[in-house]
């Protein structure tokens, strides 16, 4: 709905029945998030402007996503800047994130979706305006297929001309599943994009879980990516080693890519190998985690190691304290930083109502080499959330940030949430 308020108004109208009649129909889940935010931003002439953007997020769901029968799902946002500034490119803006009709013939049976939707299967991870189908074709096999245009507005005319088609054939044997996917993007410059993917998942003996995927760029006839991980437990310790290998010219190829920050990467022969994993241990009320990942570059012979540690303490009333530290240690001096973070969530405070909770977060980062002459940054967020009648929530939040990009940035948000469907804001966000 970019630059088009009609859809936004339609979405608001969709919500009205729900706010008037919360029990309109137990098949409908209607929800709204209204966010009024304020913060200061400089415009192109370095003039300070106090902004008041008001956001509205609306969701309408009829039926559960994979339930049998006809379903409808729509979710979108709109924003209007209540201040007189010209910091935003458009005073009003918005987007329909998804909006589709679905029909599932039987639980676990064939289903079809028509409209704007996110397709996240096999190789595909994009929004399309089109159709997708999923159907079991035998006891063990599933076929899914999709086709349509990338879900973009008139700002991206070249992308609107593109057509995306793909399919995945999956074989599920209960404890193992493997799938082969194919995807093509037509009318793509300089030539149509074609990819083949294989995804795997298996519970191996000794309860070891193996999962991951590989993708093959059919235009360059070379592997774009391998990404695999194992997961297993030794007593109460959860261990997850992982491995990734990415060939830049085959992943960031021009055919599928029009986004400027990555375009130049497709012109290099670079190969990135990521190896490492994480380990976590939990025994109420404590959870401890550690993570190490090594990012090795083949061409520039450079390696960067990120290591992190976590500590979480959760009380019986779900109050929580978390501590995190991270260290990025790169071969290049500019690729080094240290991060420290503490987060807290407090329920049942003596002076607060029973349904309220207080949460806070402080993140401090120090950089080895200054960024815009700043060696460090700090961000602090403090919020109070109050829930009532199981379907309403009000959040008041303030934030402060100081670092390379913000001298002294202070912001505040007032958020009103209405969840007329699930009736429980926590269980079904």
């Amino acid at each position: 709905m970019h630059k088009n308020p009609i859809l936004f108004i339609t979405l608001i109208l969709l919500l009205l029945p729900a706010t008037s009649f919360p029990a309109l129909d137990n098949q409908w889940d209607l929800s709204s998030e209204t966010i009024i935010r304020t913060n200061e931003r400089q415009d192109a002439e370095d003039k300070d402007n106090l902004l008041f953007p008001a956001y509205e997020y609306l969701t309408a769901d009829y039926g559960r996503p994979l339930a049998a029968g006809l379903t409808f799902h729509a979710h979108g946002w709109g924003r209007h800047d209540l201040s007189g500034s010209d910091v935003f490119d458009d005073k009003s803006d918005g987007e329909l994130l998804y909006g589709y009709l679905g029909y599932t013939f039987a639980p676990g049976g064939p289903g079809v979706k028509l409209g704007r939707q996110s397709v996240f299967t096999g190789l595909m991870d994009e929004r399309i305006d089109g159709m997708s189908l999923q159907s079991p074709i035998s006891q063990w096999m599933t076929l899914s297929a999709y086709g349509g245009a990338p879900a973009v507005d008139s700002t991206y005319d070249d992308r609107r001309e593109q057509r995306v088609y793909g399919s995945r054939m999956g074989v599920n044997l209960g404890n193992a599943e493997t799938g082969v996917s194919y995807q093509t993007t037509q009318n793509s410059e300089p030539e149509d994009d074609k990819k083949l993917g294989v995804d795997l998942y298996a519970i191996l003996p000794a309860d070891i879980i193996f999962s991951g995927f590989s993708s093959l760029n059919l235009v360059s006839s070379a592997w774009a990516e391998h990404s695999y991980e194992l997961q297993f437990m030794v007593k109460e310790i959860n261990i997850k080693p992982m491995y990734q290998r990415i060939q830049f010219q085959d992943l960031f190829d021009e055919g599928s890519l029009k986004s400027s920050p990555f375009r130049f990467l497709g012109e290099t022969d670079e190969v990135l190998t990521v190896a490492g994993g994480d380990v976590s241990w939990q025994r109420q009320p404590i959870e401890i985690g550690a993570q190490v990942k090594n990012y090795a570059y083949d061409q520039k012979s450079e390696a960067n190691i990120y290591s992190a540690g976590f500590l979480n303490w959760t009380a019986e009333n779900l109050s929580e304290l978390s501590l995190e530290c991270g260290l990025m240690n790169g071969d290049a001096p500019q690729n080094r930083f240290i991060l420290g973070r503490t987060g807290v969530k407090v329920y049942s405070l003596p002076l607060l109502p029973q349904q309220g909770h207080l949460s806070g977060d402080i993140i401090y980062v120090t950089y080895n080499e200054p960024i815009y002459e700043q060696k460090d940054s700090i961000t602090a967020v403090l919020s109070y959330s109050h829930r009532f009648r199981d379907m309403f929530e009000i959040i008041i939040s303030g934030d402060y940030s100081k670092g390379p990009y913000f001298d002294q940035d202070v912001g505040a948000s007032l958020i009103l949430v209405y969840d007329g469907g699930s009736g429980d804001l926590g269980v079904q966000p």
Partner: protein
Amino acid sequence: MRKGTIQGLILLVLFSIMLVACAVFRAKDGGVPESHPIPLEMNRPQCTDCHDKTDEAFPYIKFNHDVFYLENHRVPALTGKSTCYMCHQEKFCAECHGGRLELKPSLRKPADVDRRMPHRGDYLARHQIEGRVNPVSCYRCHGNPETAERCVKCHGK
């Protein structure tokens, strides 16, 4: 197609068959219910607190929401979407993966500090380093122009 690529593809298929063969002796999964039979608490659920690690031919361990789950949920979501839908609605995914989102997730959900949202804090500064170290993690979400609208202001079209 390059000779090495064909050999790799054959090896991958053979490896897949081997993995399936390793796992096939177990009973077939009967699917998951539409929603979790009993309401879960509002903190991060650990499936293995109640279920055996891989009992009932289901990999409960894979869906344990441990401290790293937010950054590691790609593969579980790819292979077990119906399990996610037992507790989450689609809008939950769209809060981060929805496409063109103007408000970053940590500003939209400031009280959910336990979710360790992407781009929290002064990420604008940190992204220079993380982007150099692993551009693939940026590309997963910002690989197309409409999700890279913010990037264009500095990186150009």
